[in-house]
């Protein structure tokens, strides 16, 4: 596999790159449309010129998607963007901490049946959430959590436990048991070992888990649409879906709104893609 020398050996390489470029076009096509549509002014926006580049830059669509248009009777996504931030950050922190404790115990303090317990916990991340929605609505209504952001934080924390536990357990399993035994001989108890050894060395694990949880809470739609019915407390995905389902909202505003909803997780992917990947592969258990 050394460097190709003449055109005969170069030709397959050229085809290889052409194929890759063709796929690149396929994957970037929606991004292209999103970007150019968002940048067009109202005079230029038309479905029939949707592939044409904008002649002048205007950010009208973004402004309208963010602030809404009270005159036309629709809310902007700005408030919902902040709702999602307020929701995703605490939910991420809580479920990561719980996952870290569970992962520590299930990796280093195994007891009879702990592997079975781990398996039962894991099942929770694969279930179709439809199978728990009805009692979830009833219970959150009874507890006064229905229709509130704290309610959504609570729900995301609970259903985030399986995946966070999985990632941390696999992470802690790689820590040599001798390290823990040595600390135990030195008089450190379970909490001391966690605080002074496991927690500090699992900071990269926290980055992986928190990125994963943030993006899954941010991108969630089902819990948002079921738990919150008032537009003022809805997360951005639910608000975007309402916006897109409304006939009075122009398609360019919908496109700009989509870009706003995708922005935080896209930025994370661009800057912290490596960690994102690890969370992704952890989700396939042994992948």
């Amino acid at each position, binding site marked *: 596999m050394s460097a190709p020398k003449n055109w005969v050996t170069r030709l397959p390489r050229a085809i290889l*790159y052409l194929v*890759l470029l063709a*796929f*690149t076009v396929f*994957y970037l096509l*929606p991004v292209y*449309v999103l970007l150019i549509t968002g940048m067009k002014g109202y005079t230029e926006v038309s479905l*029939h010129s*949707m*592939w044409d580049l904008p002649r002048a830059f205007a950010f009208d669509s973004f402004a309208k998607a963010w602030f809404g248009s009270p005159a036309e009777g629709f809310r902007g996504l700005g408030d919902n963007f902040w709702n999602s931030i307020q929701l995703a950050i605490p939910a991420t922190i809580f479920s990561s901490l719980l996952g870290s404790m*569970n992962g520590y*115990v*299930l990796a280093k*303090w195994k*007891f009879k049946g702990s*592997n079975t*317990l781990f*398996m039962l*916990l*894991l*099942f*929770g991340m*694969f*279930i*179709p*959430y*439809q*199978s*728990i*929605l*009805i*009692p979830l609505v009833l219970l959150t209504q009874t507890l006064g959590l229905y229709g509130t952001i704290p309610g959504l934080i609570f729900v995301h924390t*609970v259903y985030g*436990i*399986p995946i966070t*536990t999985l990632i941390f357990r696999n992470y802690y399993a790689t820590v040599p048991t001798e390290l823990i035994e040595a600390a*135990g*001989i030195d008089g450190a*108890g*379970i909490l001391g070992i966690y605080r002074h050894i496991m927690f500090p060395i699992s900071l990269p694990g926290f980055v992986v888990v928190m990125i994963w949880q943030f993006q899954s809470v*941010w*991108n969630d*739609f089902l819990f948002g649409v*079921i738990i919150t019915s008032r537009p003022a407390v809805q997360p951005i*995905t639910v608000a*975007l*879906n309402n916006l897109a389902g409304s006939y009075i909202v122009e*398609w360019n505003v919908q496109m700009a709104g*989509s870009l706003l*909803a*995708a922005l935080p997780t*896209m930025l994370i*992917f661009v800057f912290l*893609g490596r960690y*994102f*990947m690890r969370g992704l*592969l952890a989700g*396939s*258990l*042994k992948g």
Partner: protein
Amino acid sequence: MAHATLAMPRKSKRWLTSDRLISLLLIAPSVIAIAVFVYGFIGFTAFASFTKWDQMLPDFSFVGWRNYEKLFNTTRFQIDLANTVVFTILFLIACLALGFLLAVLLDQHIRFEGFFRSVFLFPLAISYIVTGVVWRWLLNPGSVQLGSTGVNLLFEKVGLAFLKNGWYTDPNIGIKAVVIAATWQMSGYVMAMYLAGLRGIPEDLREAARVDGATEIEVYRHIILPLLQPITLGAVIILGHMSLKIFDLVVSMTGPGPGFSSDVPAFFMWDTTFRGNNFAQGAGIATILLLSVAVLIVPYLVYSTRTEADV
């Protein structure tokens, strides 16, 4: 504290007991939460599917299998099941083929590998709702009077007008249009899994086969594909359970479509439960969904955690 090795076992035993209690206390909140919110709730849903609760106010009178009998005789549910089968098969084939192809292409020591990898992977980071909204406009066929839009318009521009079609507005295509968007979003995942697998295969193995006179295609068929089998199995299970649960993408991209041509059980469940207040029917659909996912996932979970426990 620690002096004689002889004293160790007794000491570590005592040290274990109080810490053992703390260890159980540490996981207790999560275990209780999952017991209630996963298993308790599933039990409640399964119970509700056997009741007469078909309006806002709960009615827990037992009706046996009646809800299930009705469900399987409902045209919409029959269409949903057929749609799920079509979606699952096409989505799996498309993702596995595309994912494998991309992984093999990226494994050819190419330049800008990081760039290409990111391009194929970034759709995973965004919400199904965003994907759905964007692809709804891309696959909006336009109209005869006003002309084509979206991908159809693009086909016209590049001289591929014969590829134009009605996408999700055509009842014969329906759910298959959703497969395009879902594949766009998830194929990168399969690529990442295969790429990780390919990188784990030592170069000597391929080299040895080449020395024995195997062509590059034979190397992939007889050496690499068999070695990647566990990854294929994992991908089939992960993607398979996703396609059984598919919901967000259908909501934002097509809705149930003409003649329920893009409807799926998860959407029907949401529709009948939270819009139609037919809680018993919704619970029935949810239970069937759960069972179908469990058939796929439970053996995989048992297998995965078993083999992990040996480590």
